[in-house]
């Protein structure tokens, strides 16, 4: 009785294992059975197995022909087929450099002692068509490379020349701006017209005014307007007193406060008083007033013109000498 029970158990286990095997399959196929030497092809292995299988797949060692190389493995896909079955697709890349027909060994599947092998496939490697031996090609000459100027520069300059140029421009621009701002340099490429000295300009304009003969034409207002404008501009440029924006009284106050102009302030007073009458009160001055005003203007400009530099130097020398004598 007991032996009958063992026999029944063995039969049930065998039946169960055969059921598992019925669910499992391993199929191998080549993407292309013909390849040219050096080319690659893909061996696709499709394994159908239970979901819970912990299988291992591969070639048996030493079975792969030495002329065929396994380069690597491409993507691997797993698809759930339902009923606790899955399909694993593995793609093995093969390459060969020797012509001939090679039978690839079966792919073995192993899971918990169960094994299964795939079908065997044949790979045909065709030789490459090479030149005939009679076509003899001489060795090629050494080519002369046409060198550009930038070939002699270091690579880092060639690679980053835009950034280097930008940095250079910014640095040069900054330095120029600082120098120009601090007036240390004058831009040589911008033509600068030397400004006419105030004294020369005033003399020239007085001469022009005299030649215009405004008073003889009865245009005393224009005459005095121009005369005072000449003097105000002269005072502005010569002494830095913005006389163009000042009234007569303010101009006279500033002239009184200035050491150089103080002695000549009375000349200006005479001119400005007459000018105010003529310009703002429609008064017509006597001819002698016009002449007197012109002469006063000329004298004021002469009296207050800048002294020659020699005189300044000599004055400085005198001052230094006197200070030295005081120190002694």
């Amino acid at each position, binding site marked *: 009785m007991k032996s009958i029970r063992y026999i029944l158990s063995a039969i049930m286990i065998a039946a169960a294992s055969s059921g598992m095997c019925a669910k499992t399959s391993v199929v191998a196929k080549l993407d292309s059975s013909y390849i040219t030497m050096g080319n690659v092809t893909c061996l696709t292995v499709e394994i159908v197995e239970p979901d819970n299988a912990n299988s291992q797949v591969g070639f048996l060692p030493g079975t792969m022909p030495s002329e065929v190389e396994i380069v690597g493995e491409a993507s691997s896909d797993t698809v759930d087929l339902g009923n606790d079955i899955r399909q694993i697709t593995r793609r093995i890349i093969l390459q060969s450099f020797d012509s001939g027909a090679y039978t690839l060994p079966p792919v073995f599947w192993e899971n918990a002692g169960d094994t299964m092998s795939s079908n065997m496939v044949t790979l045909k490697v065709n030789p490459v068509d090479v030149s005939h031996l009679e076509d003899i090609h001489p060795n090629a000459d050494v080519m002369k490379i046409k060198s550009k100027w930038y070939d002699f520069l270091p690579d880092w300059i060639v690679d980053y020349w835009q950034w280097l140029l930008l940095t250079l421009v910014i640095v040069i621009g900054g330095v120029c701006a600082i120098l120009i701002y601090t007036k240390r340099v004058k831009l040589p490429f911008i033509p600068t017209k030397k400004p006419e000295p105030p004294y020369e300009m005033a003399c020239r304009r007085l001469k022009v005014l005299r030649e215009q003969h405004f008073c003889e034409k009865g245009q005393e207002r224009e005459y005095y307007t121009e005369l005072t404008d000449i003097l105000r501009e002269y005072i502005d440029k010569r002494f830095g007193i913005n006389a*163009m924006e000042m*009234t007569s009284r303010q101009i006279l106050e500033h002239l009184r406060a200035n050491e150089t102009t103080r002695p000549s302030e009375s000349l200006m007073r005479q001119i400005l008083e007459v000018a105010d009458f003529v310009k*703002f*009160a429609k*008064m*017509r001055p006597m001819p002698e007033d016009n002449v007197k005003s012109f002469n006063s203007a000329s004298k004021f400009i002469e009296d207050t013109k800048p002294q020659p530099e020699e005189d300044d130097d000599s004055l400085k020398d005198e001052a230094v000498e006197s200070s030295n004598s005081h120190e002694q």
Partner: protein
Amino acid sequence: MGESVNIRQLNELVASKSDFITMITRGMDQTIVGQKHLVESLLVALLANGHVLLEGVPGLAKTLAIKTLAQLIDARYSRIQFTPDLLPADVIGTMVYSVQKEQFQVKRGPIFANFVLADEINRAPAKVQSALLEAMQERQVTIGDHTFGLDEPFLVMATQNPIEQEGTYPLPEAQVDRFLLKVIIGYPTREEEKVIVRQNISNHRAKVMPILRPSEIIDAQKVVEQIYLDEKIERYIVDIVFATRFPAEYGLQDLSGIISFGASPRASISLAKAARAYAFLHQRGYVIPEDVRAVAHDVMRHRIGLTYEAEANNITADEIISDILNKVEVP
């Protein structure tokens, strides 16, 4: 020197009609210590037939100044203390019922005077301010069905206290513009204050006697209107006013961001009128740039709007006007 007949006559006329200036100034000096600018501004406004807005802390002889001026001219003077509960009728007058005559009669308000002191004008609500300012402008008031012309000369001196702003009704720009001058007065000097103390504790105050009649002021006002204003001066005035509107055109780019609105054409008119009056004060029959500059601050300081940026940086209208005067070319 030869001269055109008109100016000669005008100069003579000014000389003959401006004698009283010295007397008034002397009379004011006997009562008011210091505050020369206030006295001069009052005379400018009086001669130009305008009104004065005065800003200064209490106790700077504002009331005394206008009262003394009224006494010197033998003119009617009234003072209105502006308060929040003041009504327009309290200023211009109203109709009251007379039991004896059994009819409504007009009761004239304090505005019927030659010199009116509107004290602390910004304490009264807008309707009272408007009533006063309208009367100032029109020089007449209507009570009931009757329209009454105001006395001539007519000068309103309104005061504002710059310190207390709580519970006040600031005058709108449009109404401030109606004042010919806005004068800001400061504290007296140390020496002046000593004299003020001495005068007040000794009770020795000079009695103010009338030295001229209101009609003479009216004559003087007519002469002021004739004072010659050359085209060059007109251009100078317009340049100054335009510089407040378009500062960048006059090389004042810095002011563009701090002026919210420039002076109105009324500022140009007022500047010309005040400059004429100033020339008259200095016994001249024609206006020179000096006259324009002398009155420019008082005429324009209340006609320029400042931006928030200017106020945040404590930039005043006076500083802006000074900048403009220093930049606009004098003819």
